[in-house]
């Protein structure tokens, strides 16, 4: 369980995250949606201790993220951001292997090697595992980073806009993969998403933010309704039920 208690973060007097309190239960896939500047990515960075908060507290299974030792938390929670600009020129296998860093500190054991093999196989990266990252396509590189966090094997896995810059095929593949992490591996997956329909189709829970505040939260059927979407995004839209999924049409 991730407990976010009264978290605030300001830049130059403007609160980017404003007194947000939120509890994310273990298991399932939670999407965080909201307009640009709503504070989604900032909140995710605070939860994963990449960014300090001004006031408030975040507990991951009771572990205070601003006090816990780095490697202890790194065995419990991982985050993948979308701007993975890496200076170090690494092969796919080396990158994935660094997912074991919290456990092995760079000296890999046989058990680590097994984890690495499994993660690479799970993402279908075997043919490229000895290639350098800068020799891969965008979609392959994205999968390599997901393999790295999978290899880190944490209960909580956070993804900040993982669908950015991906074509529709790779976006769907990535979302299905995150869904499987929750279903097959019983991981708690939290994803910041821009596309409401992706959030609607793949989430167990949707959290909506606006202006640094928590606006609404609930299951997709409660969240994907015109009145709420209008309030969150300030866009007129209609919602259609297609099978079990509610899809949003905001084009007219």
């Amino acid at each position: 369980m991730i407990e976010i208690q009264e978290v605030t973060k300001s830049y130059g007097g403007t609160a980017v995250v404003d007194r947000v309190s939120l509890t994310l239960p273990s298991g399932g896939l939670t999407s965080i949606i909201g307009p640009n500047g709503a504070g989604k990515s900032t909140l995710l960075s605070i939860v994963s201790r990449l960014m300090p908060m001004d006031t408030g507290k975040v507990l991951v299974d009771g572990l205070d993220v601003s006090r816990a030792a780095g490697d202890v938390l790194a065995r419990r929670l991982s985050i993948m951001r979308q701007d993975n600009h890496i200076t170090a020129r690494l092969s796919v296998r080396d990158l994935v292997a660094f997912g074991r860093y919290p456990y092995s500190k760079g000296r890999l054991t046989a058990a680590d090697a097994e984890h690495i093999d499994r993660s690479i196989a799970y993402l279908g990266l075997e043919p490229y595992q000895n290639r350098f990252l800068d020799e891969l396509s965008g979609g392959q590189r994205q999968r390599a980073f997901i393999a790295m966090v999978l290899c880190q094997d944490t209960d909580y896995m956070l993804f900040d806009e993982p669908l950015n810059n991906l074509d529709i095929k790779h976006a769907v593949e990535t979302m299905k993969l995150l869904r499987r992490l929750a279903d097959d591996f019983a991981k708690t997956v939290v994803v910041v998403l821009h596309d409401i329909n992706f959030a609607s189709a793949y989430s167990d829970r949707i959290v909506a933010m606006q202006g640094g505040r928590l606006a609404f939260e609930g299951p997709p059927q409660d969240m994907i309704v015109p009145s709420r979407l209008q309030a969150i995004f300030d866009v007129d839209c209609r919602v259609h039920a297609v099978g079990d999924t509610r899809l949003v049409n905001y084009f007219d």
Partner: protein
Amino acid sequence: MRPVLFAIPVVLLLAAVSVFTGVGSLASSDDGRGWLLVVESRLPRTLALMLAGAGLAVSGTIMQMLARNRFVEPSTAGTAESAALGMLLAMLIAPNLPVAGKMAFAALTALAGTALFLQILRRVPLRSALMVPLIGLMLGGVVNAVTTFIAYRYDLMQSMGAWMSGDFSVVLRGRYELLWIGFALTLVAYATAARFTVIGMGEAIARNVGLDYDKVVTLGLAIVSMVTATVVATVGMIPFLGLVVPNIVSLILGDNLRRTLPVIAISGAGLVLACDIIGRIVIAPYEVPVGTVMGVIGSLVFLHLLLSRRSHAG
């Protein structure tokens, strides 16, 4: 492991050539003067070259990981200039301090200068990778101007020249041993290599895998500053070395430093040996300082890297 096995004999061969290159003859001596020449001058020079080369190449690599930029090394980030300023200040404030003490002071100023560089990088919005060395060169220029001003005032321009341009012709037994400190730090860098690779993956990924980011940056800065200070204090700065060697090794073998750092250290030693041999041969019996030879070769390789990288990226 194969690249290391290939590089070691090449470097040993260069070292042998280096020992046997020079004006004085080693063979013609009667009362063991040849031996004296080897022990007092030739061997110390060869060792100094290898230690400085290995240390600077490894320092360049670490700096590139810390600054997350391929064009950074001690002479493009203000590190060497700050070390020279430290040497000058130590000379003025405590002229009787032994060289080791002055070097320690230079290491502190180098640390401050490099930390300042990294702070500037954090604050300036970087629109291009080339901005980073540009900022470093400007910072180095400012520090250098201050040093020059003071040196001019106190008639110490000659010392300053000795710190800023590498010259191994002055190396004798008893005058280069500080470089072994730099070598010890190079070994520390190897022992902690995985951390620097993680740093090179960026702050977010480093924190994500639980690395104490600030601590590792501090360790890296300390290593780089000390190594640079030992080189500046004993033989003088060798520009471009920390740029050329890591970039070429990275192009071929990548940046998993646990694997590549030995290759980088050995190649750095080899390249400095080669440059020094060239410098000793071209206008024999006179010498071209190794810094000058390295400057020519280094800037050509650097230019090639820039151009080929662009076509690679495009």
